[in-house]
């Protein structure tokens, strides 16, 4: 993988290969030293003891099944919140996007300012604000809904921008053809524009799921018991924060990598079966990076 030519360097010659190998060895030594130091530090402070690792990894440990049941319920909440948030956000985001592209100027201004405002506010602040403002307005909800509403407020504007990108990338002829067939504005949107925009933006929309999963971890601000908060509660009795948050990190990584893989499959699917005439605008407009599809927005 090292010698593939990129814009920065050509295929390495004998001298370059020697240098690269020397640098590799030097870097390996440095990493080995770091790993050894960290490892001995971990061992010296008893981080590998049964006390700390057992509840997480050893099925024979008395706390094992209890802990994993506890964390599993948190994971269930995480996934539930992410799923509901994304589903609702897609609906609201579509409505916002359609408003933004089809509105008459005076209320497009309103839609644009709503979208731009929510994009400039931290999600954690939105979640917190929802959890404070709704009870103050005499509409207390279960904690889970504060988190969901906060995430939805942020994600629906992100999704609106994604879908707007999809609509903008469609050739003008699509709308003109639909209108010349006598379709109403609504039917043009519903039957012609949106299906194509969705298909084109499917990878970006799936990536948004991974972002929503990451955002559910903000439940700790309002003490909603999702995965991270459950871990935080569990370490108060087990006293193994390093091990606990390591495992929780791995769980988030596994979820997000699976979602990312899904996005890549969707991307292949949506680029592979493209029957529209003319050069496909997909590659230039889809804001996903094929390497790490879940990143660009948090």
């Amino acid at each position, binding site marked *: 993988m090292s010698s593939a030519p*990129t814009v920065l360097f050509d295929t390495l010659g004998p001298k370059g290969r020697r240098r690269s190998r020397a640098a590799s060895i030097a870097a390996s030594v440095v990493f080995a030293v770091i790993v050894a130091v960290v490892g001995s530090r971990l061992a010296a402070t008893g981080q590998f003891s049964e006390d700390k690792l057992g509840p997480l990894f050893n099925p024979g440990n008395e706390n094992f099944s209890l802990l994993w049941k506890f964390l599993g319920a948190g994971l269930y909440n995480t996934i539930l919140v992410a799923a509901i948030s994304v589903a609702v956000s897609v609906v609201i985001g579509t409505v916002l996007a359609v408003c933004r592209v089809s509105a008459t100027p005076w209320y497009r201004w309103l839609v644009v300012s709503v979208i731009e405002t929510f994009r400039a506010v931290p999600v*954690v*602040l939105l979640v917190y604000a929802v959890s404070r403002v709704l009870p103050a307005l005499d509409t207390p909800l279960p904690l889970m809904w504060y988190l969901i509403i906060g995430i939805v407020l942020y994600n629906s504007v992100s999704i609106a921008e994604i879908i707007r990108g999809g609509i903008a990338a469609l050739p003008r002829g699509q709308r003109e053809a639909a209108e010349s067939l006598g379709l109403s504005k609504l039917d043009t949107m519903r039957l012609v524009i949106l299906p194509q925009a969705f298909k084109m933006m499917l990878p970006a929309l799936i990536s948004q799921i991974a972002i929503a999963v*990451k955002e559910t971890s903000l439940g700790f*601000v309002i003490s909603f018991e999702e995965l991270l908060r459950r871990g935080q509660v569990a370490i108060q009795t087990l006293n193994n924060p390093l091990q606990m948050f390591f495992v929780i990190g791995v769980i988030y990584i596994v979820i997000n990598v699976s979602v990312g893989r899904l996005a890549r499959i969707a991307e292949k699917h949506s680029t592979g079966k493209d029957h529209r005439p003319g050069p496909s605008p997909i590659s230039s407009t889809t804001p996903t990076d094929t390497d790490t599809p879940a990143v660009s927005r948090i």
Partner: protein
Amino acid sequence: METVIQNLDLFFQGWLGTLKICGAAVIGALVLGVLLAAARVSPVPVLQRFAAGYLFIVLNCPLAVVLFFIAFGLPQIGINGSYFAFGICGLILYTAAFVCEALRGGINSVGVGQAEAARSLGLGIPGILRRVILPQALRSSLPPMTNVLVQMIKNSAIVGAFGVGGDLFKVADSLVAGQGLPAIPILAGVIVGYMVTIMPVAALMGALERKVAVVR
């Protein structure tokens, strides 16, 4: 409205706190991000793999998990520090991955032919980097970099929420939850605080983009 005006100095303190977190984090994240990007695009396999592994972990983990791991984990192995230091550390480690991605995207957007043309003109590697590749790569990194900076400012609220204190988020929390003041005006004030932080950054980066833009 009055509640906001009465506590205006607190808001200002919080705003300075947010700026302090962001200022420290942006310097650290840029340095670490540049190093990571250099490792990622270097011809040394070990460095490449290390950078790729780092990106894989950090890009797929929520910031909150990174912060918890650092702040609760490190004291366990005898590394003590203030929550403020841990919080900034976490934000740096997290943001650096996105800085690296923005830079790498910029470098990858430069066509291979550019370097080939530069080589055939007789430029050496430093010359190619300095005069041909980096000017183009940095230009196309600017828009994603703006996004990274804006996200970092917003993520500083997570650092605040996490207990660092002294930033805008914490001011809102202490006024609303601590003193029981009405939530809506206070939170609106804090939202305005984030907007006046983010908008100049976005505008400045936009101006920079236009200034260095090249018509092709």
